[in-house]
């Protein structure tokens, strides 16, 4: 994946920000790349560096043009940036916000306003054109913010947790809308998210950052099925354990919980203390402080029967047939790759 040649108007970047980030990023035109990772992994730093908002070493090439040799100012980079808190200009109407990026690129006012109105219409908020940001709901404001970023037709669209801080229902609707717009957008989109659902539904590829480095790249399906970091495993709800050169992952529903040491064919077994128990769909999800921390789904009946409350010592086991094994290093062949 990492050495796949990008042809045509794509993104190729080596971004180094001292003490925070050292990442290689590639994307083809029209691709949507989800950037995931724990807090402090460097996701936002990556977006800021690509936009030119923080000083960086390395190279950024977009659509065949270098943005770093010579260094281009933010305003000359042709990016669209969607901020988590929208950051709409509070003194401008929704229409003027969307028209702003067109006006700065010397589009005449009537043309800019007509185009901006078109973008508001595409996001279903054209009747809010004359409203100020403080008169918009969170979801409406984020639609305007995305329209504002897309209106100047940037080569690179950077979205920093665009659904953060929105109600779950609003986020779901907006996710569907954004997927539609990203499908017809022919630039490159990088989407920072905390939500596995965003990565799975919106992205063509997923880039996993961990402590400022790229821990994994791949299709959403591949990353979800074979996570290489605990963070991603948690995001997609899998247990991942490391054994030498391989990872082993298994679903929390494949885990058997018992009070005594399990007998029989289960090869993998751990002893640990229940840290938390919380409803998860029809089941109860336990977080168990074993070595490492594991999650297990049990029925509510079993929870009561076994007295699975925080502090309880339990045994966890999983059958070998329920465990998926894959190479730890992304550069090695996958022993169990399909």
């Amino acid at each position, binding site marked *: 994946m990492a050495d796949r040649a990008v042809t045509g108007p794509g993104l190729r970047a080596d971004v180094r920000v001292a003490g925070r980030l050292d990442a290689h990023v590639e994307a083809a035109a029209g691709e949507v790349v989800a950037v995931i990772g724990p807090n402090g992994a460097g996701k936002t730093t990556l977006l800021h560096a690509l936009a030119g*908002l923080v000083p960086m070493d390395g190279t950024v090439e977009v659509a065949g043009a270098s943005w770093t040799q010579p260094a281009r100012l933010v*305003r000359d980079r042709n990016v*669209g940036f969607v901020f988590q808190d929208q*950051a709409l200009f509070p003194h401008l109407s929704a229409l003027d916000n969307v028209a702003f990026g067109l006006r*700065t690129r010397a589009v005449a006012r009537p043309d800019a306003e007509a185009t901006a109105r078109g973008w508001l219409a595409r996001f279903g908020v054209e009747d809010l054109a004359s409203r100020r940001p403080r008169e918009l709901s969170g979801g409406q404001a984020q639609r305007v913010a995305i329209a504002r970023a897309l209106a100047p037709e940037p080569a690179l669209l950077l979205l920093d947790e665009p659904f953060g801080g929105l109600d779950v229902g609003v986020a779901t609707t907006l996710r569907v809308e954004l997927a539609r717009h990203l499908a017809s957008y022919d630039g490159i989109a990088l989407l920072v998210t905390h939500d596995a659902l965003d990565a799975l539904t919106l992205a063509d590829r997923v880039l996993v950052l961990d402590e400022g480095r790229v821990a994994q790249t791949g299709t959403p399906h591949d990353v979800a099925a074979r996570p290489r970091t605990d963070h991603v495993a948690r995001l997609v709800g899998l247990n991942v354990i490391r054994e030498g050169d391989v990872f082993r992952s298994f679903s929390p529903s494949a885990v058997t919980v018992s009070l005594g040491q399990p007998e029989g064919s289960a090869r993998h077994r751990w002893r640990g203390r229940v840290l938390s128990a919380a409803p998860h769909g029809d089941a109860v999800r336990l977080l168990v402080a074993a070595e490492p921390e594991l999650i297990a789904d049990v029925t509510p009946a079993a929870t009561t029967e076994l007295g699975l409350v925080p502090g309880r010592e339990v045994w966890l086991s999983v059958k070998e047939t329920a465990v998926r094994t894959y190479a730890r290093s992304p550069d090695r062949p996958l022993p169990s790759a399909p």
Partner: protein
Amino acid sequence: MSPRAGSATLGRPPLVLVVPGALAAALLVVPLVSLVLDTPWGSFVDQLRTPAVRDALWLTALASAITVVACLVLGTPLAWLLARVDFPGRTLVRAAVAVPLVLPPVVAGVALVTALGRNGLLGSLLRETTGLTIPYTTTAVVIAHTFVSMPFYVLSVEGALRSSGERYDVVAATLGADRWTTFRRVTLPLALPGVLAGAALAWARSLGEFGATITFAGNYPGTTQTMPSLIYQVLQSDPEVARTLSMILLVASVGILAGLRNRWLTAP
């Protein structure tokens, strides 16, 4: 706001606080009330028609208007530089800008004479090259007013620029805006309340300016005699005129305060 605990729950306010507090209020209010009561309202309009008063009124209005314009045109860029550009010596410049706030006005006048007087640092240069001299002209009045008023304006606008934040500057840059466009379309509109407050403060300071003006520009009727200078001159000889003029300045000051009420008169 939580309901305020009153006398019913906490007991009566102690006299040791009530008495000095009332005294302080009286000290501030009584002189103003007596000025209002003592103003010769019967001859008020006639007083305004005398040439000396008319000239002083006109000169004060002119000087304070030009001062506000000078603050807007020169002070706004300075406030922006202080708030947004990390240049060497910025802290020093900001400190220097604040000095006239606390400087005794007469010292400001002496400083202006030292710089722009006939034999001053810049004044002598100006005289030798163009033959022009500044002291004792209406220009000197405007310069003195601007010198003492500008700090109020710059600090008010700088504060507004800082609190509106660089955040929207960054957003504008991602939308392709250069810094001048960003300043015009984003930074300045967002700082507008601070600009208006700063302009009102500068205007108020200019209306009452006396010490620096009389030191640097003198007290010549028609060219440099502003209202405060005239009040000072006629207080012994013609106290009625002095009170009339004082009343006008009081009304103007209260008007400014009313305009700024959202900032100062409403308790947080």
